[in-house]
């Protein structure tokens, strides 16, 4: 088992490294660099050469990659192109804000979607199932900017319960985002619920039809004890990976939602950086998102190993 974990970990690191190479090469391949972006029309002759020398852009690509990657490992992504700010400082708050938003959406969304999925699966083909399933699909199919706009219209403009957009600066203490970020979290929850719910539903249906649930019934186990003790632990195993992907997707900064609500998260920063052609910041954000995906999936794998006794000792016996 330890060997399996080590292998997964090693694969994770290799993936992140490959992503870093691809990002670096991608940025290299683009015409222009940070200096041409900053200097704009003055980007020629001596000014350009000086800027490049200052930013170390005249070094060979390999040296720059090693410098950049080495810094990234230590959490230092260098300096942004336009503002001469340290990227780690700008990004740090943004990551925190995105985490905050994701945590809000996940802490409601995951339990809710598991609950709805389990109910829909247990009462399959009844009105409960039809209501929950179509509701979830409906929520998923509405594009998030439409859902966001409608929610703003209802709750911010008509009812006036919450502000429409977030005006809090990025580095404000977390509590100041409340209650502004509620609407954004609700929109995110709506989108992610359907994925997890449908997965949980189908796997609950499958497990409830399994031999061991039938056996538990014929052993005289009461219904809800079957559901909680025999069925759900098995039904949630396949859902773990879907949940992990959703978590990664949320942590990666959900660009559209953040833009609509003017939420100072990673996604907003990414959009800003792209329009400013601030390549170092884009690089940094992409790396963070990639590392998040790998990390969350790794956690899901480990969780799967812990929760599934069959995976844990699958080397013990061969069929």
């Amino acid at each position, binding site marked *: 088992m330890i*060997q399996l974990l080590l292998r997964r970990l090693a694969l994770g690191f290799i993936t992140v490294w490959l992503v870093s190479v691809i990002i670096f090469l991608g940025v290299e391949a683009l015409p222009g660099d940070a200096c041409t972006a900053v200097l704009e029309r003055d980007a020629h002759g001596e000014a350009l050469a000086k800027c490049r020398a200052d930013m170390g852009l005249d070094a060979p690509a390999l040296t720059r990659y090693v410098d950049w990657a080495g810094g990234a490992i230590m959490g230092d992504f260098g300096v942004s192109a336009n503002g001469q700010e340290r990227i780690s400082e700008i990004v740090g708050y943004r990551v925190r804000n995105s985490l905050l938003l994701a945590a809000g959406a996940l802490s409601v969304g995951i339990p809710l979607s598991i609950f709805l999925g389990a109910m829909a699966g247990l009462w399959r083909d009844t009105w409960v199932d039809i209501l929950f399933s179509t509701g979830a699909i409906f929520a998923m199919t509405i594009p998030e900017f439409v859902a966001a706009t409608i929610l703003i219209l209802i709750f911010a403009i008509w009812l006036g319960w919450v502000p429409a957009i977030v005006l809090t600066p990025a580095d404000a203490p977390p509590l100041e985002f409340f209650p502004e970020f509620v609407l954004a979290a609700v929109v995110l929850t709506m989108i992610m619920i359907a994925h997890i719910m449908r997965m949980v539903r189908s796997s609950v249906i499958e497990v409830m039809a399994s031999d*061991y649930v039938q056996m538990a019934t014929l052993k005289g186990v009461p219904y809800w004890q079957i559901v909680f*003790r025999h069925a759900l*632990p098995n039904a949630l195993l396949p859902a773990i990976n879907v949940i992990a992907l959703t978590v990664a997707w949320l942590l990666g900064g959900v660009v559209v939602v953040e833009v609509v609500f003017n939420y100072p998260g990673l996604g907003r920063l990414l959009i800003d950086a792209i329009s400013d052609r601030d390549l170092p910041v884009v690089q940094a954000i992409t790396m963070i998102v990639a590392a998040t995906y790998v990390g969350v999936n790794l956690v899901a794998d480990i969780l799967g190993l812990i929760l599934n006794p069959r995976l844990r000792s699958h080397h*013990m*016996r061969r069929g």
Partner: protein
Amino acid sequence: MAKPPLIDIRGLSVGFRGRTGALLPVLHGIDLQVCRGESIGIVGESGSGKSTLALAAMGYLKHGLQKILGEVIYGGADMFARSPAQLAKIRGGQLGLIPQNSGQALTPTMRIGRQLDEALRLHCSLPEGSHTARAIELLTQVRLPDPATILRRYPHELSGGQQQRVAIAMALAGEPDALLLDEPTTGLDVTTQAHILDLLRELARARNMAMVYVSHDLGVIARVCDRVQVLYAGETVLEGPVRAVLKTPAHPYARGLLAAIPRLGDRTLPRALEGRPPAPGADRTGCAFAPRCAIATDHCHTLHPPMVASATGQATRCFYPEQTSEIDMTGSGAPLSCCAENSPLALSLNGVAIRYDRPGTLARILPARTRPPATVDDITLRLTMGETLGLVGESGSGKSTILKTIAGLLPPAEGTLTLGDGTALTPRVEQRRPDQLRRIQMVFQNPDESLNPRQSVADILGQPLRLYFGLKGSELRARATDLLGTVRLGAHYLDRRPGQLSGGEKQRVAIARAFAANPEIVLCDEITSALDVSVQAAVLELLNDLKARHQTTFVFVSHDLTVVRALSDRVAVLYQGRLCEIGPAAAVYAAPSHPYTKVLLNAVLEPDPDHAPNLLTEDATELSPPARGCPFQRRCPVKCGSVCDTDTPPWQEAEGGHAIRCHIPLKDLRETGT
């Protein structure tokens, strides 16, 4: 006997709603009475409704099924009229179920201890803290070694036999009055099966329990039951004491079933029962069995026969119970086709060893540990043209592994494979040239998985014909029709898909596909074990036919010793991936010499109440072969000493190519008898 029945099923009909909305019955007015201490067998082929009946006895129907008529009286009330709370109290308490596949019936995420504990808490009022002790007691009662360790295990960490014992212990936890057994030993090895049946008999006797034993295997029924009910298409067609039903059955279907069972002592092929039972909802004005019955008259096709009392205490659903004795119950008398003596070599395996484990990256870097012994080791075999070699052994004996290696799916770790013309057989199938590919074909156990459900039969048969012979168009179709003819299927099957075929028909198509390549060697991996006995007999007949007509070499793998007996010229007995005994089938079966062969043959159940298996050794589970010495050292009933632990036994040659690998001198092996 005036004893009131414990479970009284009266006129039970169960059905499901078909796509048209009509209610299609799968059980037709079943009556079944079981008394305390009595053991009733329910026999029938797949689809006969026997499992549905067993579960209905607990007031349980699978999703989609509903009760149409009748009642199941237990404890003075109808099980179907009870509340969920009352049912939960009875189920697992007074009525215990032992499921078919305990590997799937135990919850995979719960330790054995927790599952037993749950049963105990639900049905026994034990003082707090004594549950573990009781659980250990139960596991000891079902003769599981080291019960304290088993409690901490997860279901997948146990062998099939151990899982089945745990399921029995779980049923016993509720101190049941009656056990309902749904094919509890199907899928287990013969020796394990014999041990479990022994255990069940003893438990039933000791606790005066009633048993309802569902099985397709008349051998099993003969071993454990007092009375039998034979189901056909959801209807009881014969009921009576086990001895009468097995010796002088008064219904044509029961006679046909018995004739289809291959026997150890028979050198002729079993007799196939042609046709198949009516589907649920089919017209049932006449006798359901009439279309397949040899003695059916017009009367049978127009009137539904009632159950009538017949000789020897049987009740039969037949108009002509006296005339059923005309139906022959012995084998077909078809002689087994035999290969010519001294035919040329087709394939030889020279010192083949096979491993599943491959050293990983980490293992290669870390200092070398001793590798576990190979899964299959030291296999040297010579197959001649037209010969059928049977490979027998329990699960884990490596018999299918050897087939995979011949097929090129699993390259050998050591040793070589040589074809008849002296050329080496390329180890990996993806590197074999078309010519070599053509010469070796394989038929798999389960045709549901080996035939692509989206291809028509014509596509399935066409692929090898195009690939190896470049046939096209009408030529291709003509050849495919020919092939269907050789497996006795009409040309109209060409445009069907596997989903529209029965199990036996699918397996015939799979055989036809193998023969499409005009192969020299056909590898058969348990090809009849997913089929009903009547269908199995037909497939065996077909293979025997093909064997006679083509000079094809068969390697026939089966866990069923009687099936191997019915078809093989030579038999090789494997234990833990090592050869124990090899020789002409007649010699090996008549005079089994290796202790393991004796153990195996003695555990075989015959559909004869006078036949009792002779259990020579414990059915201990072994996970890996021993590093040194004889593979059978840990279970051998006649182990002769430390030499068995240290030295690989030598081959001892007997007459006619019969060879035994044992330290005990041949003379003594023969004398110790069975």
